[in-house]
Structures are given as C-alpha cells and as structure tokens.
C-alpha cells in the first residue's frame, strides 16, 4: 500500500518457558494507513502477536521492526520511549482510574512522553474531540456509558498521534450497540490516517475490516485483503 511498512514481523517465533509455542514462524507486513483484523479462536496466539507488535513482549527468534526500529536492538528505556511516542493500546478492559476526570485520564496517555502537563491537557481535549467526547471532559468514568468509557480509552491511546494503534478485543466488554459505536470510531480514525490493528474473535467485526489475518495455533492461516466497496 505504502512504501514503508509500520510493522514488519520476519519469521517470528515466541516460545514460553514452559515449552508452549505461542507464535510459530510468523512473517507479516502492515503498511501505513491500514486497518487490519487479526482473527482467531482463543489460544491461537493472536494476543501474543499483538504484544510482539506492541513491543510489550520480545520474540524468541526472528525480527520485529516497528516504525523503522528493530525491537531486538533496543533496551527497556528505548522500547518504552517507542511505546510512549509511536504505539497506542486499547484493551478489552478499559483501565480507567476511578475518580479522575476524562481529560486527565487522556492527558496521562502522554505522561511518559516528556510533555509538560499543560500541553498534555491541551492535547487531551483535541483527542477527546476527535473521539466525539468533547462534552465529557470533566466527567468521571462512572458517569459514562460502557461505550463512552472505551472511547475515552481510545482517546488516551491516540492522544500522542501514534504511528500504530493496537486494539485487543476492544468490543469484548461491550454490548452490540456500544461495540458498533467503538468500531465506527476506529474506522473514522483510520480514515484520518491512523494505522490500526484490531484483535478479535468476532467474525462479524473482522468481516467489516479491509484486511483480515486469520491465526490458528500460532501460525497465519490466511491473509485476505478486500477491496472496499
């Protein structure tokens, strides 16, 4: 799609100490501006794949390159900086601290980026506006619906304008309507240029995304692209 891919996995293996091979020789490239679903049953290794792309985990062998940087050559501090600046995460759990305002929760998405508090807060307003939550700046998580809470988590993930947004079952804790709301947001962000990888076991959601990578037993079984209507 574009010349320089955001994520490159080259013959990546991940073996856990107990001998479980979660990822077996996966090679995949994700280009800039893509919206990709990684689909597979639980235990298929899709979460491990996401952790590897997000540099939260290191491959046992093989190379992971994120936004041009080879993860294997970076220490904890550099990897953390890479996550702070280039990668955003959305999890199935919203991970929103109680009693903190929406704006401050999103601003904390930049806590480890080195920006001063005032700039972090200003950018939080922008990210919340992008996620359609500009009317909820002072609300606390318990005053928001589930869908709104997950959208706050998305705002926190994109507040640093990351090159890559990784979403691990982002609709797993939501009802269908709220889930659709979050997926609409992700589509919108992708249309604005963000590269997004969504992990899901929901075929319906996977079918709605332009590229689907199916995973089973740690291997890619299919990688299908669909020209959008």
């Amino acid at each position, binding site marked *: 799609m574009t010349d320089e891919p955001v994520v490159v996995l080259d013959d990546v293996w991940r073996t856990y100490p107990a001998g479980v091979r979660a990822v077996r020789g996966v090679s995949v490239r994700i280009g800039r501006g893509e919206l990709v679903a990684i689909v597979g049953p639980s235990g298929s290794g899709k979460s491990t794949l996401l952790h590897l792309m997000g540099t939260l*985990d290191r491959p046992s062998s093989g190379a992971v390159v994120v936004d041009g940087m080879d993860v294997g050559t970076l220490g904890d501090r550099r990897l953390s900086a890479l996550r702070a600046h280039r990668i955003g995460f959305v*999890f199935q759990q919203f991970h929103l601290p109680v009693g903190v305002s929406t704006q401050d929760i999103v601003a904390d998405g930049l*806590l480890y980026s080195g920006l001063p508090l005032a700039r972090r807060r200003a950018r939080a307003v922008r990210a919340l506006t992008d996620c359609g939550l500009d009317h909820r700046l002072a609300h606390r998580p318990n005053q928001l619906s589930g869908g709104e809470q997950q959208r706050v988590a998305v705002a926190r993930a994109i507040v640093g304008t990351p090159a890559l947004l990784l979403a691990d079952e982002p609709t797993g804790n939501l009802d269908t309507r709220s889930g659709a709301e979050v997926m609409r947001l992700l589509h919108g962000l992708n249309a604005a240029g963000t590269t997004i990888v969504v992990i899901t076991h929901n075929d319906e959601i996977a079918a709605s995304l332009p590229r689907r990578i199916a995973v089973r037993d740690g291997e890619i079984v299919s990688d299908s692209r669909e020209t959008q209507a």
Partner: protein
Amino acid sequence: MTDVLPPARLAARDLVRVSASGLRARPLRVLLSALGIAIGIGAMVAVVGISSSSQARLNAELNRLGTNLLTVSAGKTLFGDNAKLPAESVRMVARVGPVTSASGTGKVGDARVYRNDRIPADRSGGIVVLATRLDLLGTVGTDVASGTWLNAATARYPAAVLGADTARILGIAHASPEVQVWLGGRWFTVIGILDRAPLAPELDNAALVGWPVAQAALGFDGHPSTIYERSPDSAVAAVRDVLARTANPESPEEVVVSRPSDALAARAAANQSFAGLLLGVGAVALLVGGIGVANTMVISVLERRGEIGLRRALGATRGMIRSQFLAEALLLSVLGGVSGVVIGVGATAAFATTRDWPVTVPAYAIGGALVATALIGALAGLYPAMRAARLSPTEAIATT
C-alpha cells in the same frame, strides 16, 4: 526514517502527582498505615520534647537559684554519734576569701511544734525546729511567701517563721499576729511563712526561730548544724576544698560538704535515663509502622498489576514504575511522619503547659523524625517497587 527516540524522564511534579493519586485511591488503607508511623514518631518526639522541656525548666531554675551554694553540715563522729560544728564555725566560713555570704541554722534538739497545746505529743508531724541566723534567706535564695522574716528584735522573742511544708501540715495559710503555734512547750507567734527552698529542702519542713530566743527559751546549745555559703562560680571548687577544715579545724572528717544544685541535676539525670527507655519503645512502634507501610505497598503492587501493565503500555520504563511505587511509599511514610511530629509537639505542649514548664522541642528531634520517616519509607518501598518494576508488561496486562 525515524531516529532512536529519546527516553523521557518523569518530572518530579508528575511523580508526586502520580503517587499522590495512587494513595488517594485507597484513603482508608493509607490513613491506617500512616497512623502506624505517626504513633511511633509522635511518641519519640513527645519523649524528647518532654524531657528537654523538663531540662529547660531545671536549667531555668538552676539559673535563678544559682549553682554556687555549698552547704556544710555536721556528720557523724568516729564512733557514730552525731557530730557538732563549733559555735564560731559560721563566722570562720564567712572569713574564707572568696565567700560572699554565709549563714547557718542550728537544730534545736528536743523542741517539737504543734498547732496547739492539746495535740498529743507523738503527733509532731516530723517538723524540725531550727534556730536561724538573720541572713539565711539571702544566702539560701528563698523568700517569704506571707508575713515577714525575723529581725534583730523578733529574734529575741517567741516568733517563728514556718517552712512551706510546715505551714501546710499545721494548716496555716497566712502569717498574722493572731496565729500562734505550740513550739517547744510555749506559744510562738507565726510572723512569716517561707516559699519553697529548692536548694535547701530541709527548710521546707522546719519552723525557724531566732538564735537568741532558741538559746534562752528552748535550750539550744548554740552549735550550728548546717552552714550555707555562696562564693563566685569560679571559686566554688576552691572553697569546697577548704570548707571542712575551716568549719571544724579539729575534726574536719566529721563535716559533710555538699552542693545542693548537684542533687537537683542528678534527679533530672535519673529522669533522662527513663526517657531513654521510652525512646526505645517509640523506636519499636516506628519499626512496626514501617513494616505496616511495606505490607501496604506489597499488597498495593499485587492489586495494581493491571495499572502497572497499562503504564508500561503507555511507555513507562521499569525505572519509572519503580520510582512511582517508591515515591508512594515515601509519601505515605512522610505523611505519617509529619502527623507524628504534630502529635508529638502537641503532646509536649499539653504536658509542659500543665506543669508550667517552658515548651521546648529541639530542632534535631523534628529533623531527625522526618529523616527517619523518609528512610523508613524508602526502605519499606524498595522491595515492593522493585517487584512492580520487574513485572513483565504482558503478564501484568493478562491478570486483569
């Protein structure tokens, strides 16, 4: 193409904000574990504060009374009988070069004091009758609380000045010409009551009468039993060396020389050693408080694995996670320490005020308390913080 990104540092202000919000999320637990530290620090500050307030009071008192008073009293003879000082010994002592004033009292052997003549003889209340020289008050450094002191005229007549305890025992609040006591088998008019004499406590339970009347009416032999003298501070040691020989040249070994201010200081020192014990108890409380903080932090790390995972995903380094939990432990323990100092100073102030002592809490006690809490916080937080930092991000995220 992107260069290697610079790893950011967490600004001190952000660190405090993050750790404070961590504590705010669990207020009751924070309160309880800070309380442990507060009790320990409070106890220690109060012990130091109270004992230094007591020391300050003693110093003020010694300052007022002076430490240059020496007393010479008759001891025992070689055979164990009560010795006597020569009748002229007060004058002899007064003649020693540096001595600025000297006075004396003589015990009137058999005389007893009663409120009136109907009191059974055996209920004498332990009151001693002393014949006194007229310059006694200036030398001893005490004053008349009520009435007047003896003068050349009243010293010849049955007039008595009562010590502070004597007046209390006899139930006499004020001296007046109408108040009489049954002293040595005759009526004596109470013309004065003394203040307490901290440097001569033997005066507190005595009834003082003039030297002439004691000799004339009470069978007093004229031998002083105690001599009081003052000299400049620099000469006290030198005077002390010659006092025994001056007072009783024939048998200086029968003379006891003492410095009453030493006894006051010794009593204070005895209190100090007790304070040391209490300080130890406070230290144990502080240690237990520190363990409480460590325990709280360990539990906190276990509970907050999800948060740790999220922060790692947001780009926190291991070091930043470690700093966060360390700062939380520090903040928690300093919170306890500061409340402890407030409690300790408050307790000292309350205790000292009820006793009319000056309130003194040394700066080193407050500084030491805060340093100690910071140290305890750091120690208590170290292990939990390292555990939090070692947690692998994937494991942390997976647990929620």
